[in-house]
């Protein structure tokens, strides 16, 4: 595929992620922090997020499986996950966390279990999206091209 075509694919793909709500404006802020002196900033931060979310999700599975569920602990984990997903612009994960915390507030175990599944699903989905995004970027750079930036208000 020609470089121009890959670049266009990347732009279209990124736009679709915004349209479908996977990403929000915070992701653009993240991209703006990347430059020649920090060329892998987005990749690093997104990778940290997935390491973090995996640990938190495992803790949540264990916590919800206890005979006496500690809702404070669960809320604390979800709060953390909500924070980090918000920081990278992973909007659907963030929204799933907000719903999760609402069920924590009223100590509804069934609701929490459902939300846990939703959060897991959203993390899984956005992870795949990011992997595709990074792969396209790598293809562009391997072809000697530069990664096009998305402008707000497209």
């Amino acid at each position, binding site marked *: 595929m020609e470089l121009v075509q890959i670049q266009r694919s990347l732009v279209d793909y990124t736009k679709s992620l915004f349209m479908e709500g996977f990403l929000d404006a915070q992701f653009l*802020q993240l991209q*703006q*922090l990347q430059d020649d002196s920090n060329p892998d900033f987005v990749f690093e931060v997104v990778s940290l997020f997935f390491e973090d979310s995996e640990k938190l999700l495992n803790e949540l599975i264990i916590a919800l499986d206890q005979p006496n569920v500690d809702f404070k602990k669960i809320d604390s984990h979800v*709060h953390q996950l909500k*924070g*980090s997903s918000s*920081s990278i612009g992973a909007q659907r994960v963030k929204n799933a966390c907000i719903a999760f915390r609402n069920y924590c507030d009223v100590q509804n175990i069934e609701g929490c279990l459902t939300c846990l599944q939703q959060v897991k699903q959203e993390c899984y989905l956005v992870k795949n999206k990011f992997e595709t995004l990074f792969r396209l970027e790598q293809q562009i750079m391997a072809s000697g091209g530069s990664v096009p930036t998305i402008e707000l208000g497209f």
Partner: protein
Amino acid sequence: MLGSGGGSGSCSKDMAVELGDEPHVLVVDDSLIDRKLVERLLKNSSCKVTTAENALRAVEYLRLGNDTLEGTVSEVNMIITDYCMPGMTGYELLKKIKESSVLKEVPVIIMSSENIPTRISQCLEEGAKMFMLKPLKRSDVKQLKWHLMKCRN
């Protein structure tokens, strides 16, 4: 664990940022992602950055509570701290800083992912310069720098 952006080693108690000097900001947050984000935002705005992963580390770094050593650390021109942290909260850290005769003039910014009016007024009443909603953006850092420049004579 602390991350240092390089300090000037100045022992001056003068809070004014000298012309040409990069302001030194201490960032306190238990989230590694948020520390990285704020650090990058600040460094892109020509600030020196030191990070601390919780309030206790910040207290140690600032030598808070130690009369002879307070303020002898690389001069910190601003402290940005998360509100919700395990152990000592950002609010408690703010109170400690305001109790210090040396460090009480250092502007303290509180960050939080939650927009809770009582929390905000509590922090402002205790002397926080500003309360900011996370995640921080470039426009937020511009505001911060303006506050830093206000310290200039």
